[in-house]
């Protein structure tokens, strides 16, 4: 018994150690550092609330970056979820080569986070890239994907939406678990396909939509690779998401304390939005077996 307990702890140890060293300690340390001035090379100096005061009252770059980040998240998350659900609904039909298509649509989400894909994206949407060549072939003029501050954020958003595979797989699994008898009953009642989708499919998918919403929102707030490689936050800081600002403050200007304060404000925003999502879920998420049903 004692030996088994030891064995269990031994199995747990690597994970617990990893969690402590790579997550818990840096997490707590960054909270402390957010109240200091720290340039990495010398000891942190206590600064009280100075970093937060500057951040929330005087920092125009933070204001701009926060606005860009919120725009990015509110554009990306609904677009990606809608697209993932749309493709999952198509892939739910019994078509020829369906497994091939399922794999093909999933692949971008495996590749999507990589640097190589961001570089590829940069070449596709460059002024003389594939996207503009395609537009030219159908008689349309070129679009300034990166040079125009309004378009640049949208182009970065497209990259994120293109990585819809993981959300799609979850939707697909949920779609397949919906009881077929419900559809049969609706068919007997003569319900149209649109009605079936909105009255049966969508309500039964709400727990999965909720899950995907939270996951995608958290990931979108942390986006870094795409804008860093493709635009470096430009032009005119139109793609300067908060993680880029944190990175610049920490590793280019060596203001580790200030960077930690930005990170904690970002954490606070994600936390608040997640809590709002949880609170609102009581009103729109349907769980089978729920007494309200």
């Amino acid at each position: 018994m004692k030996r088994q307990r030891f064995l269990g702890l031994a199995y747990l140890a690597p994970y617990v150690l990893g969690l402590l060293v790579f997550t818990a300690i840096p997490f707590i340390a960054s909270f402390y550092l957010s109240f200091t001035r720290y340039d990495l090379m010398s000891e942190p100096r206590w600064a009280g609330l100075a970093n937060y005061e500057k951040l929330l009252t005087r920092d125009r770059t933070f204001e701009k970056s926060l606005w860009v980040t919120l725009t990015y998240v509110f554009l990306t998350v609904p677009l990606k979820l809608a697209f993932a659900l749309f493709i999952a609904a198509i892939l739910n039909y019994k078509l020829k080569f369906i497994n091939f298509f399922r794999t093909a649509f999933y692949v971008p989400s495996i590749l999507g986070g990589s640097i190589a894909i961001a570089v590829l994206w940069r070449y596709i949407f460059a002024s003389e890239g594939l996207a503009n060549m395609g537009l030219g072939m159908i008689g349309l003029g070129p679009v300034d994907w990166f040079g125009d501050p309004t378009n640049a954020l949208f182009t970065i958003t497209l990259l994120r939406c293109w990585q819809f595979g993981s959300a799609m797989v979850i939707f697909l699994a949920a779609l397949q678990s919906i009881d077929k008898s419900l559809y049969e009953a609706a068919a007997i009642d003569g319900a149209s396909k649109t009605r079936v989708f909105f009255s049966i499919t969508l309500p039964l998918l709400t727990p999965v939509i909720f899950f995907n919403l939270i996951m995608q929102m958290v990931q979108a707030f942390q986006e870094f690779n795409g804008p860093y490689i493709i635009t470096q936050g430009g032009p005119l800081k139109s793609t300067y998401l908060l993680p880029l600002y944190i990175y610049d403050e920490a590793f280019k200007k060596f203001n580790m304390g200030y960077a930690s304060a930005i990170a904690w404000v970002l954490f606070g925003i994600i936390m608040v939005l997640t809590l709002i999502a949880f609170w609102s879920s009581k009103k729109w998420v349907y769980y089978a077996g729920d007494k309200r049903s």
Partner: protein
Amino acid sequence: MKLKRFAAVLTSTALISMTVAQAASAAELRMSWWGGDSRHVATQKALEACGAKHGHTIKGEFTGFDGYLEKLTTQMAGGTEADIVQINWPWMPLFSRDGTGFADLGTLKGLDLTQWSEADLNSGSVDGKLQGISVSTTGRTFFFNETTFQKAGVAVPTNWAELEAATKTIKEKLGDDYYTFNAVKETAQLLVTLAVVQKTGKDLVDPETNRVAWTPEDLTAGINFLGHLVEIGAIRSQKQEASDGNVNLFEKPDWAAGKIAGSYEWDSTFSKYADPLQEGQVLKPFPMLHIEGAVTDGVYRKPSMLFSISKNSKNQEAAAQIVNCLLNEPEGIDALGTSRGLPSSKVAAERLAGEGEPEVRAANAIVVAASGPVISPFNEHPEVRGNFIDTLEEFAYGKISAEDAAQQIIDGTNDVLAEFD
């Protein structure tokens, strides 16, 4: 008999100790640097040769310039930097404010310091401790693609007025998509700096007051100078540059094809810009172009990169042997060649006299011969540079006037300088 046995034991002991000593001195080292392909290849060959000579193995850790500082800073904070580290001169105050950031090279026996001038040794010292040894002196100079100018039947310009005239002819003869010059990000900053320094003879920072030496009017004229070059089509606009995404000049197809026919770059990076050119395109270094009424060449010259040895290295003497080999011994000198510009070490400079790429020599000769004020490391302070470049971008997109941009740059720079009072 006893004596013989004693002698035999003594000899064997001596032999064993020598073997052990040899094995102990054979160190496994790491060296990190930034650069382009030609530098990576040359440095790896040099490390192999020096490693073989001194019985050490050295693992190279190399990247491009982008991201190198961030990586090195993280390593320095964690004490995991390589044994031998290539650093940029303006980073010295960051990594070694009081002369304790790196090993004191003056105390290591393996390095022959008599090969450097007093000025070179001073430039790498903090509080009397030698924190880095100068590899070369570098500066910005002009590179022009001769082929493009020849195709249009015009001479390579010797001043900005001639560049303006050449731009007009090139666009007429070769097409509107041809540009005679390039200025993005820090190159734009340094081009504006060049214009102001040529006009005023002063560096950005006044060493006496530790504040910006230029007046808002001086800087406004410099910013307008950059704006004029964009207006006449000599330089692509910031918006056009942004349209390509974040791509280095030497990676651009238009550079390779000669459609961007010039730039203002570090002398030591000549190969990085010449290598990607399409066959038949010829790139050459040229002396500084002058604005009207220039009082100096305005060269932006500084000690180039330094080699430092980590204070955390367990093999500092072995690392010093390798640094000495790279910079002072034939094996290292021959393999490195001019991949880091023309060397500061006297013995290396003598050995490479007449060798190496003639264009790199020519570029370095231009930088060394040109006149200009002593430049402050604050020109490359991350916050000063960030503010300068961001403000120029706002000006380029028409968000602010040249006057407001000048004031914004001066105010931002003075804020940073005030932190060092």
